[in-house]
């Protein structure tokens, strides 16, 4: 892992901790859940999961197998509008954090790192 990667990870960690502490992360999670429900994405994914369970068999299925099968397509079918909205909100939250603390991570370098969510 390069020094740049290490710094990025550290900044990510700080940003994430701040968001959890302020309660913003929970709010954003709730917003994301609502948007994904509204556009029908959730129902689509549920159907996908049912198909996978049917194929693999109820006795053999584990959560990890399900995640491995369904995640790629599910990630892909998230509507752009939802991604844009959430990204904008996260950017706002981080820039608010920057304006509050002096030794803040630079805004541009944080946004270039991709976020992994569960």
């Amino acid at each position: 892992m390069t020094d740049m990667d290490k710094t990025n990870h550290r900044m990510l960690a700080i940003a994430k901790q701040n968001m959890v502490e302020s309660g913003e992360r929970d709010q954003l999670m709730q917003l994301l859940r609502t948007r994904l429900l509204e556009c029908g994405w959730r129902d689509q994914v549920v159907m996908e999961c049912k198909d996978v369970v049917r194929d693999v068999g109820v006795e053999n299925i584990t959560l990890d197998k399900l995640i491995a099968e369904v995640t790629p397509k599910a990630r892909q079918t998230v509507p752009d509008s939802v991604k844009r909205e959430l990204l904008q909100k996260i950017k706002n939250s981080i820039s608010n954090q920057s304006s509050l603390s002096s030794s803040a991570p630079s805004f541009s370098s944080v946004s270039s790192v991709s976020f992994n969510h569960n």
Partner: protein
Amino acid sequence: MYRSSDRLVAYYHQRMSSSICQHLDSFKHKYGLNSYQIIYKQFISVTTHESRKRKARNSICFTCRLPVSRLHSCLYCVFFGCFTGHHIHEHSKTQNHNLAMDLSYGHIYCFTCEDYMHDKDFETIAKKQKHRADKVCGARCVQYYMWEPTSQELQVLKDNPQRKRISDNSHIGLRGLINLGNTCFMNCIVQALTHTPLLRDYFLADRHICQFEDDPSMCLVCEMSRLFQEVALNCLPLVFYSGKSSPHTPYKLLHLVWTHARHLAGYEQQDAHEFFIATLDVLHRHCRGTNGPTNNSPIHCNCIIDQIFTGSLQSDVVCQSCKGVSSVEDPIWDFSLDLGPSLHMRQQRATSSTQAVCDESEPKSLIDCLERFTRPEHLGSSAKIKCSSCQSYQESTKQLSLKKLPVVASFHLKRFEHSSRFHKKISSFISFPQYLDMTPFMASKIGCTGSGTGSTDGSNVNTYINGVPHNDNKYCLFAVVNHSGTIETGHYTAFIRQHRDQWFKCDDHLIMRASVQEVLDSEGYLLFYHKQILEYE
């Protein structure tokens, strides 16, 4: 379809009774549920600022020192490890701790079984803590929790294996009502009320808490609730005329109404509108207890009747000399609309022998009636009002407009004239629309804002849903009560709408399919409209 519901019952039964993971069971026996609860409360369902801070700073994988996703906590010791990096798996192997819980949702992973395992006791804790946290964090809308049957509910399902399937063709919620002797006026109002969506939802969801502690049989709301369930849960077969589904006899309701609204007692034919108002009043009084017995103000009452039927009218009195405006807001439960020639016209006709030139014509439609209702009226030289700015009695005009729209707008066409000279019925045809927009009658459009001029700012008419402006003043017809006959002898029938576009005619115990044209062509005495924004498109 019967098999799938039986399978579901069997599944829930199994989840309740048997255990799934023996490793979880032995952990439970040895260590109990406490550690799980502590970890859940500290790291998943946080409620205080301090615990949120602690969660933020400590939700880190001990190995890679980063706040990763899918963080797990060991159940045996204090160790957090990430799942994707397999750090929790390494810990499990080296320490021989075979159980960990996921810190996003509280699911328990068993490393021996290599999967997440369900356990009723742990899940009960998780559910309880989550409910607690949701309440504290004040989720803006009520959280949706999936329905899970209790053991009694499961037993009921198993004891009663017969299932009724609701399809597009089944007609649920229609039931004839026996006429107990000139009680068609009551039957029509009951049909209209049981097809008022919000009211039906309220009663079917059992939301009423009875205030009559010593004698609940006196409560009209309880009786209504039972009646709704009798009507709304009745499933009529496809063919109505076979009469297979028996009509309901509302003798209890009648008795309760007689007890609480004495002026309606007796077997004579009553006015359906009077019955409607009396019923709403009694229901409101019997509901009122739940909202604080001290609050008598009709505007501030929060009972289901007021939530649905009560709106408010703005009454503007304009002094003709200084043009000063005095506005008052009053509650309104239904709109009683005059028909026939207006008072002004009648006065003119009475005073002059020649045909007076009249600039007003008789109303021919509901819109005409509403226009007349909200027209500025000159109060006349014999009814001067004291103007506060002029400090003297001046002639003035008075205008009514709608300030707050009720969810259900009920219109009463005053067809029955009771004057000292004669009683007669105005049977002229008044057309009414299926869809009604109340915007032209709103205070924001035609009322006075205090400056003496009507407001032209229509921006507060719209509410915004997902960024799109939505006109909140549109209504949709859902019930019509008609009176046929003369003022001495007559009969009431009702048209009610089911789903979006299916109309039925209710003639006491007879229910017949009707077309929307039949409804719109009928005479119309009481018209019930529902705010359109609540319809499910």
